[in-house]
């Protein structure tokens, strides 16, 4: 699977948020999309998902996503919205099964293949223990894993995840990151908007740092998370651990 974004421009309420973003990604990888608040990370993800109008070209394996049918796009790209939740007290397996909607033929029940995909998503996200429960009775960390399982169940070659670990405790943050890592290791591409730089440094193959609607840096985590980049985009000084146990610990503002 090859994702290519060429000269993407997008606006939100009249304000230009993205100003000429171009990137290309090939094959299985876990891409972290980082940058300060308001630089256009979510807008970029939403544009690729086809949720907002944009100028420029986004292609999957050479086919422009804006020309795809809604169903074909839904099978190719799964999307987990920031702070997604269920409006109804759905039972966990029913919620995960919603991820198969793009694959269901009209007037047909879920096929054996759909059931198998749901089972794989449930086991990958580790939500077996919640089966049979109402999703609204789960804790925040448990619920976000169930919602992630829904996105996994699509089994799309490209999965876009918007801030999957915000508002979670460290244990659940690590679990989510491990699930995303495992999904990418199965041969798919994951693009996740992340705020936790240590998690990004430790789990992603590649980081794309956005600043002011443009790509500031793009490459392996060690090349992107440099003191200079952090100072210029995040306006922070940080302790940066390198080698086998990388970390980024913000220590003060750089004004």
């Amino acid at each position, binding site marked *: 699977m090859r994702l290519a974004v060429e000269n993407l421009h997008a606006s939100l309420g009249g304000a230009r948020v993205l100003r000429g973003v171009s990137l290309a990604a090939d094959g299985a990888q876990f891409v972290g999309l980082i940058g300060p608040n308001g630089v256009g990370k979510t807008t970029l993800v939403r544009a690729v998902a086809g*949720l907002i109008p944009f100028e420029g070209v986004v292609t999957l394996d050479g086919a422009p996503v804006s020309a795809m049918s809604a*169903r074909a*796009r*839904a099978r190719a790209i799964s999307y987990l919205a920031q702070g997604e939740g269920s409006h*109804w007290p759905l*039972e966990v397996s029913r919620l995960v099964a*919603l991820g198969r909607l793009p694959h269901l033929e009209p007037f047909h029940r879920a096929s054996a293949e759909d059931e198998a995909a749901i089972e794989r998503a449930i086991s990958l996200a580790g939500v077996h223990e919640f089966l049979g429960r109402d999703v609204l009775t789960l804790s925040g960390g448990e619920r976000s894993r169930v919602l992630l399982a829904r996105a996994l169940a699509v089994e799309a070659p490209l999965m876009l995840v918007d801030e999957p670990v915000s508002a979670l405790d460290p244990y659940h943050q690590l679990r989510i990151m491990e699930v995303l890592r495992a999904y990418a290791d199965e041969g798919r591409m994951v693009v996740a908007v992340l705020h936790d730089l240590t998690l990004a440094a430790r789990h992603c193959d590649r980081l794309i740092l956005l600043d002011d609607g443009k790509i500031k840096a793009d490459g392996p985590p060690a090349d992107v998370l440099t003191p200079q980049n952090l100072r210029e985009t995040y306006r922070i000084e940080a302790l940066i651990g390198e080698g086998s146990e990388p970390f980024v610990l913000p220590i003060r503002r750089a004004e």
Partner: protein
Amino acid sequence: MKRHIDAWAVNLSLAALAALLFAASIYVGRGGELLADKFETISAVDRDIAWLILTEVRLPRALLGLLVGATLGLTGAGLQGLLRNPLAEPGLIGASGGAALGAVLVFYSGLAAGTAMFVPIGGVIGAVAALAVLYLLAGRGPSVVTIMLACVAVSGCTGALTSLALNLSPSPYAALEIVFWMLGSLTDRSMTQVWFVLPFMGVGWLLVASTWRALDALSLGEDTAATLGFSMRSVTARAILGTGLAVGAAVSVTGVVGFVGLVVPHLMRPLVGQRPASLLLPSALGGAALVLAADLFVRIPVNGPELKLGVVTSLIGAPFFLWLILRTRREAP
């Protein structure tokens, strides 16, 4: 986990219940009197008259009860799914207000005296006009919230204009006629009216039913539904147009029968679960059963004026609504 009873078992029992109530609606008369003997006596004298009474007097009432109930139940479940709000109701869509206004204008202008069909025709024209205004108000690519606000605005306008018609009504009798009609009733309807509403309801039902999978996807919000392959524009348009046509037609022949669309989906949730798509069919069947039952209830008093159907459903529905709000408040974190 509390296993939900098999959905088909629920649907079949509800269908059986609706069929039973349908038969009762045909054979039970004023004061709960069973009409089977009377039919026998009449048919012994003249078979044609007995047949005529059955098809032209008894059948339309029962059929309309069935159709209107199914419409209100189905569209209620559909709207609650579309808006992801358990308090949504088909009356919310401006179409029922538009239908009421159209029908009232027919009364007001005195056209109603011409033929019984002018009222439903006026009602459907009113409903379609309200939907057209709604479409213009909502603009291009509106969110569901925008649509709902537009619906409230349209409902408000039609309500105000209906009141104005009452206010300016030439005679107290005309005003009384309008008020009584608006209370909602299935009495003295004809097969012509049944045939008239059927195509509108049929199209409306199909439009609402066609959104079933999208309603499930909408449980996770509009963005997620869009990325699951559903065009929100088309889904919203089908659900609103379908509801408008079916409910507009229902209101134009029976007046306003409130709360059925609100209450029925809630009665069905414990039986078939919370998934919006799985609620559509049971709600349609349950709505039919509820309206037929309420229409049997209004026949019980032997003396005095017959209770109006809309009055009975509101008397049952309003306390239920209150209880629902209290329960929602209790469950809120």
